[in-house]
């Protein structure tokens, strides 16, 4: 295929990706150094209220946005350097908190709070997803052929459901005296309020995420299990290997590429954790990096969006993505060079 045909085939897709992914990325990077805000002017306003004998007049200094001839607010964009990053990171406060060892102070700064949760969430759910996925796939593989189809159908449901709706459905099971909370209460014989502190909400979020992603892992691993060499399993049995040893020395090594693949996908996705925060409406207790950017973008009561702060926090989120991708990309690059 010569270059021209290749370009004709790939062109539209590349164009869309450049226009809607690469360009916004650059513009976010630029935006994070500028700040756009209305120009305020200070005006003296004299307000008079009718009173007995004389009017009472008060003169106030009010700062209000300047309007142009169409009655629209004039805005001005200026270069502020790293100011937006400073607003998001609050480095002085954070540094003071770290040097004094006051972690609870650090967690009052939204960005650090979000970073802490995002990282814990990612790192704790990863082994759980791999473990549960592996377990379920082995179970499905053990089951009779006739029930595998229906079981896979049922397993797909948590994966296919709209994430926000999935979170909400778990939320409704636990909210207030929801039946699962009631069940926990009778079991532990004490009163439980699952939505009153951060750590219980975090546990619920992780439970949801494992429930949502484990089926994906399970199905990928199940496909891998179909290609395990039966002969080596059989010879392992004859050599006296226990079930556990067969699993450890034959099945897991065979699945290793798939385990790496699922881990990569899961790391990318759980680093973007967002729907959990919306569905549990936990912003008072727990927030994530992506939610932080989202929150800056949602108009506040006055209708302003803090675009530059959102850009700064988006760029800081990007650092994590880059770190996440360095190793797999280096590996792919080496494979590519080796292949030619």
């Amino acid at each position, binding site marked *: *295929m010569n270059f021209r*045909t*290749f370009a004709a*085939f*790939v062109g*539209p897709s590349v164009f*869309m*990706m450049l*226009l*809607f*992914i690469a360009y*916004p*990325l650059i*513009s*976010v990077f630029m935006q994070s150094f500028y700040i756009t805000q209305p120009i305020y002017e200070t005006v003296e306003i004299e307000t008079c209220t009718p009173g007995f004998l004389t009017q009472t007049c008060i003169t106030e200094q009010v700062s209000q946005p300047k309007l142009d001839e169409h009655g629209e607010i004039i805005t001005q964009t200026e270069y502020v350097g790293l100011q937006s990053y400073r607003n998001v990171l609050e480095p002085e406060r954070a540094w003071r908190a770290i040097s004094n060892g006051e972690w609870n102070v650090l967690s009052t700064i939204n960005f650090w709070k979000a970073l802490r949760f995002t990282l814990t969430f990612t790192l704790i759910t990863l082994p759980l997803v791999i473990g549960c996925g592996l*377990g379920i796939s*082995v*179970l499905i593989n*053990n*089951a009779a052929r006739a029930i595998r189809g229906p*079981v*896979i*159908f049922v*397993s*797909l*449901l948590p994966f*296919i459901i*709209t994430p926000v*709706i999935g979170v*909400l*459905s778990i939320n*409704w*099971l636990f909210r207030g005296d*929801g*039946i699962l909370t009631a*069940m926990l209460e009778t079991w532990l014989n004490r009163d439980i309020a699952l939505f009153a502190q951060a750590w219980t909400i975090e546990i619920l979020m992780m439970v949801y995420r494992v*429930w949502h992603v484990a089926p994906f892992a399970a*199905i*990928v691993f199940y*496909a891998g299990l179909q290609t395990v060499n039966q002969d080596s*399993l*059989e010879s392992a*049995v004859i050599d006296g290997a226990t079930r556990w040893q067969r699993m450890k020395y034959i099945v897991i090594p065979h699945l290793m590429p798939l385990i790496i693949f699922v881990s990569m996908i899961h790391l990318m996705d759980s*680093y*973007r954790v*967002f729907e959990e925060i919306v569905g549990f*409406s936990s912003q008072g207790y727990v927030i994530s*990096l*992506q939610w932080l*950017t*989202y929150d800056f*973008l949602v108009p506040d009561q006055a209708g302003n969006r803090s675009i530059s702060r959102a*850009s700064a926090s988006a760029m800081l*989120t990007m650092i994590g*993505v880059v770190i*996440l*991708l360095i190793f797999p*990309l280096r590996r792919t*690059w080496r494979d*590519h060079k080796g292949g030619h």
Partner: protein
Amino acid sequence: MSSRALRQPLSLRLTSNIFLAFWCIVAVFPILWITVMSFKSPVDAFDSNALNVIFGPATLAKGQGISILDIIAGIAIFWGTILVSTKTLPSMVRSYTKPGQAWFGWVIGVLVVIVGFLLVFFVILPAVLGVLNPIFGPLGKDVLGLTTEHYKTVWIDRGFSDNFQNSLIVTTGVVTLSLTVGTLAGYGLARSGSTLAFWILIVALIFRALPPSVLVSGYLPVFISSAEWLAPILGENAPTLYGKPFAVIAVLVAINQPFTIWMLRSFFQNIPSELDEAARVDGCSHFQAFRRVIMPVMWPGVITTGLFSFLLAYNDFLVTSLLLDAQNQTMVPAIVGMFNRETTTTDQVVAVAAAVSITAPLIFLVLIFQRQIVSGLTAGAVKG
């Protein structure tokens, strides 16, 4: 498990199946439970006793319930629909359509089944049972509290049907556009071994990892002020892109593009390149070979990728909630709005009903396309 050496003892098989059953319950329980909740009056729906939620005494006390006869008839119709859609429908489609146009037959067939089901279940069934229930005495007496009023509230009073329409527009747009653009690119990438193709794929992989919120913070200012900067090109009636479904479609297609081209590429690679070489020898251009020889054998891959594009557009919350205004709101942000705004339990149950309404099509989708979804999940993975 043909070999005797690999045969498992009964105890192990039993434990394994018990655990599997446990997983199935865990997987399906939340979805099943909100479905049950959505049919109950608020008192029952949020009762802490599970049995009260299932049988709904408070709902029954209000005179809304169904009899044993109703339940039997309802299950029979469900079962019939499943049978029709898994057995009769495929054979009908196969016998009535020409080989290349099976997809068209499927679209029509699925629509007919859905419309027929809704008609029978919600129009004919209540009418028939209204006559039959009094005749059957004890069998016709209400035993299970059940009400559909929340669905009526959601769909009719709250204007959820508008949100449904918007979702339909967005998802249709995203699926069509991303498949058109994606199949071309996927084919080009699969058939070219150049370094450029490799780099495009790597960059796409990096884009796949980007959180959408990063990109949305790039779109928002540009979209809001688009009337200004488009004015020199389009003149007076330059549109404001913010709040417009077509802008969101373009954005979602682009965000989805990396995934689409990776998946389609792996499907195209499974098609032997001798096939298009043969077509080329017979005098086809690259594009003709693609259209006449490759596309006809490519439908399974295209359908699978289309399903995943559909899921992305249908399930998206972040992009649609930030880039669409209130009139063009899709279903997911609308439900989140209902959930956050409403404080009384009645409103909560209404939100539950909306959540079930949005989930039902997905369940049908899995029912019909299970094999394609599974093949899609494993397509990228098995190659590593």
